């Protein structure tokens, strides 16, 4: 998440700070996404130049990993678990509820820009299924009601 008012490192600074690490590409991509919320296509030539890679190689890496995104996310990203343990505790029904409540499907952002919805395959909270994550917060034993309450609180504090 980005905070206004604080000085953020620029993409160039992130590349310069990390490019000499062995296997620097993923740390750089994380650095950019942590700062901007996504990896704009316009960054790709700079990253490629910094690491002596082709733009195709950098693009290939960004598109390989589910977590990296090339479009801006909503203010909050909701990661909803679809994996087996959560399915055993009603994740499919919860998924239907979440999609209809937000009015979006997976990989989409609400029209007001508040929430993005992403599937996730396990948050390691399988003893408290079904699980979801909003930002860095993890939620367990999520029900339709607790989901509604959570996003209302999140919306209020956002």
């Amino acid at each position, binding site marked *: 998440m980005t905070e206004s008012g604080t000085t953020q490192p620029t993409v160039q600074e992130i590349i310069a700070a990390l490019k000499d690490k062995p296997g620097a590409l993923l740390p750089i991509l994380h650095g950019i996404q942590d700062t901007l919320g996504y990896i704009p296509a316009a960054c790709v030539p700079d990253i490629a130049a910094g690491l002596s890679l082709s733009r195709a190689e950098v693009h290939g890496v960004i598109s390989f990993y589910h977590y990296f995104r090339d479009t801006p996310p909503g203010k909050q990203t909701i990661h909803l678990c679809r994996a087996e343990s959560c399915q055993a505790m009603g994740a499919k029904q919860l998924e239907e509820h979440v999609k209809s409540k937000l009015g979006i499907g997976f990989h989409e952002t609400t029209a007001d820009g508040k929430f993005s919805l992403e599937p996730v*395959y396990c948050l390691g909270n399988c003893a408290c299924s079904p699980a979801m994550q909003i930002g860095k917060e993890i939620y367990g034993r999520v029900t339709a009601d607790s989901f509604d309450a959570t996003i209302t609180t999140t919306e209020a504090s956002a």
Partner: protein
Amino acid sequence: MSITIYVPCDSSAVSLGADRVATAIAKEAATRGLDIKLVRNGSRGMFWLEPLVEVATAKGRVAYGPVQPGDVSGLFDADFTQGAAHTLSLGLTEELDYFKKQQRLTFARIGKTDPVSLTDYVENDGYRGLKNALALSQEEIVQAVTDSGLRGRGGAAFPTGIKWKTVLNTASAQKYIICNADEGDSGTFSDRMVMEDDPFVLIEGMTIAGLAVDATQGYIYLRIEYPHACEVLNAAIATAYQEGYLGDNIQGSGKRFDLEVRLGAGAYVCGEETSLMESLEGKRGLVRFKPPLPAISGLFGQPTVVNNVISLASVPIILDKGGDYYRDFGIGRSRGTLPVQLAGNIKRPGLVELSFGLTLRELLYDFGGGSASGRPIKAVQVGGPLGAYLPEAQFDTVLDYEAFAAIWAVVGHGGIVVFDDTVNMAEMARYSMEFCKIESCGKCTPCRIGSTRGVEVMDDIINGRNLDKNIPLLRDLCDTLLNGSLCALGGMTPYPVLSALNHFPEDFGINVKATAA
């Protein structure tokens, strides 16, 4: 005298409100003018009781749970700070049946200590293994691990000692230790617990591995889905550097070991060791051909040990108490203990560390208490999304690598996901194919194309179209995946698919009586 109160900081406990409970306890104590020391410990792993609050008393730690912020004032009214009775009282934590019946070796400290306190770690037998290792030759360290019978806990169950020996015997100026912390299997959370609740044990295990094989650089490849683990590991690593447990002169020995956490980016296949190394090198996580083995040519082409979190976290106790001590637990060729994770539709989900040798039934009913819904358990999936589904008739199978292999199943990373009788196994088989399709790295055709075709065939089967043609087609496709894939993702997707088909044919629309054969 100050009273010590424990509220877990484990992310599962936090997901159930542990942070709010901790805040409420601190506030209530302040209001009442009580002098308390609030410790954020790891979780005991009894998640149906989380948030589990403990109070230190002369008799031992007394447990209360599950506690919500609204219960806090009542707990103080009832004098819980003296261990007094309350409707949420559970008695002494370590006398709770679920906990008492376990054999906690790797998880010995978890739930007891403050995860990021090096003092707590050292006072509770931490760094004794490293101390011994520093006095041994490299061959002796590797021998101790070999003697312990430890096999890779990530799922492949390859003998850890043999892997280490190969790296030790491969000459190179630079070698690496990689901790595979890409715990992507649904139903598993033991790696997460180790990293969040006892990070120093992993750091110690990796340091010993580095000493053993002459590797000076370690990486923990951690999945992005574990942000809490990332924070805790980085805090613990910083402390370990400050206190001379990492860096260029470990405890004055002149030996060097550096350690860094690297984050994945949401690709299940990066839990496969060669794909993981590609990712660490900054590339797409494409699976490599083997040979060469990573032990000979791994990260950046150098000899590399790749071990799972639990494997590495089991090393300190082996070096502390000896290979024989660890080997004396377990049965057959499955030595030591396995931290089993009970998940899904189960009444008492949690972490159960025990010697190999228990039956699934004992785990599901004696520990787990049956399904959470109260309905009959129809199937369990053991070993993650690539593990077989087992029906009730196989619940007497003993937890042992070979016993599971004998029924065409896998122990894997020790996750057990429970489903009640409302599950449709054809839907689960479809999901397995879909998961393979989403997560395939795309390098080999059977996995890349086969998983897409698998979803289509399953859709036809679920809709009852042409079963006479489509069931054999599904089997044929599984045969191709099983025998033609480059790694376990494509190669093992047939396990859940075919086990579902074989054990639950009625869910696939097959009239069992008519086709009995």
